[in-house]
């Protein structure tokens, strides 16, 4: 009996302690799940840098609430690990919001969890259209593959490109990109001469180059994961004389700012369509780059940076509006418009996905001789996610 009483007393103290802390300060916790170790660690680093830039520019407080970010390492594509991290964050760390997510399977794995626990989750990257359909608590200020691929096809057609070969890496996003490009290009009247799905592990692209050259198209549209495949493809593209033959390179995220330097002059002149270039010409972006340089000297701003920066903005606006009363958070930001380092953007009230401009860029050298993605055309303004069936 005595023991029972003591246990009860202890439990009471704990409850009181919790209640006390909740009332005393209005700290709202956000769990950020991303790879911080392994081959994809650069993503976590880019995310964290960008969130820190946002905090440095806007302070630790969103309205009356102090925001605290808790980072968790998911490693690479790892759905089950991501799910248990999310569970741990919600149950043990008592976070009210989640953020991060580089890979589609990781984002999908938490959908049932956040739906049940009613945890608003802001996706900083994962770009497969379907994700936002899987839970009402997903908000995605990053981009989707359809969103950037369709404008690429439209721009190509407008330039007088009539024939194309599609070469994509054979996995989910690559297949999405192929379908998006083909559908748009053929609807406009263009002809797809060949579509090649290249194995994910390949870094020897010589055989594919030969096949593309034999078809002699006006352009080759590619989708490749950033890193070794993009690097090796661009090298092959030059060394096999495709550039010389006049086959134009069309892509989306292959010219990522963190690997652009590695490509060197081989990348000059390559054309891609994307929602963000580190060299975007606006005061907002210059301010972003300035703070980034202070926080992490030498770091490049890329899609991950802008995704996390806008993700932090969305989180701040939700917290400012509703604090820990998270069930109302998503409604509070639906339709919200703001100025991002990438340009003017807003959140689609129906899909909770970002509406943004898609820019056509070509790789060029800036005044310091550094390679950048120079934006020179906007094919379409305010593009929603075009990959979601209505």
């Amino acid at each position, binding site marked *: 009996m005595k023991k029972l009483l003591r246990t009860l007393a202890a439990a009471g103290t704990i409850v009181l302690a919790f209640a006390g802390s909740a009332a005393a300060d209005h700290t709202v916790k956000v769990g950020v799940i991303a790879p911080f170790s*392994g*081959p994809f*660690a*650069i993503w976590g680093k880019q995310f964290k840098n960008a969130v820190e830039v946002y905090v440095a520019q806007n302070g630790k407080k969103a309205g009356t609430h102090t925001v605290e970010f808790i980072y968790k390492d998911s490693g690479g594509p790892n759905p089950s690990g991501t799910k248990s991290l999310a569970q741990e964050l919600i149950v043990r760390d008592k976070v009210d919001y989640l953020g991060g997510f580089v890979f589609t399977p990781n984002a999908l794995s938490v959908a049932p969890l956040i739906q049940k626990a009613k945890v608003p989750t802001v996706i900083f990257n994962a770009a497969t259209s379907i994700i936002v359909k899987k839970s009402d608590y997903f908000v995605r200020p990053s981009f989707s593959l359809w969103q950037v691929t369709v404008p690429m096809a439209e721009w190509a057609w407008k330039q007088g490109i009539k024939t194309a070969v599609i070469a994509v890496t*054979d996995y989910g996003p690559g297949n999405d990109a192929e379908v998006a490009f083909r559908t748009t290009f053929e609807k406009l009247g263009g002809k797809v001469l060949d579509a*090649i*799905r*290249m*194995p*994910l*592990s*390949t*870094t*020897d692209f*010589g*055989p*594919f180059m*030969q*096949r593309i050259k*034999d078809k002699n198209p006006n352009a080759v549209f590619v989708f490749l994961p950033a*890193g*070794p495949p993009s*690097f*090796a493809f661009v*090298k*092959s593209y*030059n*060394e*096999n*004389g495709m550039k*010389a033959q006049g086959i134009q390179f069309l892509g989306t995220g292959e010219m990522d700012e*963190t*690997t652009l330097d*590695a*490509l*060197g002059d*081989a990348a000059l002149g390559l054309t891609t369509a994307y929602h963000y270039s580190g060299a975007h010409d606006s005061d907002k972006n210059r301010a972003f780059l300035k703070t980034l340089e202070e926080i992490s000297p030498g770091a490049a701003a890329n899609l991950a940076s802008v995704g996390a920066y806008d993700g932090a903005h969305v989180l701040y606006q939700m917290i400012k509006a509703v604090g820990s009363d998270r069930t109302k958070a998503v409604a509070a930001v639906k339709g919200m418009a703001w100025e991002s380092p990438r340009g003017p953007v807003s959140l689609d009230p129906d899909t909770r996905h970002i509406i943004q401009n898609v820019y056509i860029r070509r790789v060029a050298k800036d005044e310091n001789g550094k390679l950048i993605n120079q934006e020179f055309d906007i094919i379409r303004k305010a593009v929603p996610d075009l990959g979601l069936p209505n």
Partner: protein
Amino acid sequence: MPAISGILIDGVSYGMILFMISVGLSVTMGLMRIINLAHGGFALLGGAAAHWLTTIAGFGFVISTILAVASVMIIAMVLERSLYTRIYRFTELQQVLATIGITFLMIASVNLLLGSTILPIRVPELLSRPIDLGFRTLPTHRLMVVIAGLLTAAALYYLLERTWFGVRLRAAVDNRNMAASLGINTVKIYAITFSLGAGLAAFGGILGAELLPIDAYYPLRYMVLFLVVVAVGGMGSIAGSFFAAIALGIIDTAARYIVPEYGTIFFFVAMMLVLTLRPNGMLGRT
């Protein structure tokens, strides 16, 4: 039939790169009989050194390659004297665990010093241009790799089969105690051979970097490739590795020409067939 000549040319040049990066493993694992999973690690160290020398220190490609290979050989010598002399006496499983541990250390070191993004090696302008062979164009550096591969194979064959060093090495590998009692300095022979294997790994890593780009996770990404080439070729047979690499290169390339959607499956089917029919590899000694 341009397709067949295309397959042969691309296949041989890809096979030669496979040979270049796995021949060192054929020396350490095949001849010396240590399961050296750190082989890719030495290739990574060579590539990372060449990256640093060509892009940051500003040296030329040839000098950088020589310096990078030399420094990897020195590192390998130090590791051999301090760690591998103990690893030689381990059982096979212990060797696997020990050398994979060394690989992780190498990955983490490169990651810490140079980051996890791609580490490009700047090659001379001359090598990054396409070269016109009349009926088709080919990247010049592939031609260089083919020539370097042939020279390496010839030099190794000469070293192992035609010199006193080769005789002593083969004696030491066949029966270390007997060789030692005949007055052969087996400790020295082992150190030199191990260092040679690591140097070849570095050389292959640098030359193959255009096709298998160097980054901190290089050893894990391509470890299977090296092991397959050595296993299919037969342990301890330089000629076996050579023919296995060329054959696998041609098979993989043909699959990519004809049925790209099946990915690399033919590469592994070929491996399984060879190992089923000849468990010791194409030219392996039983």
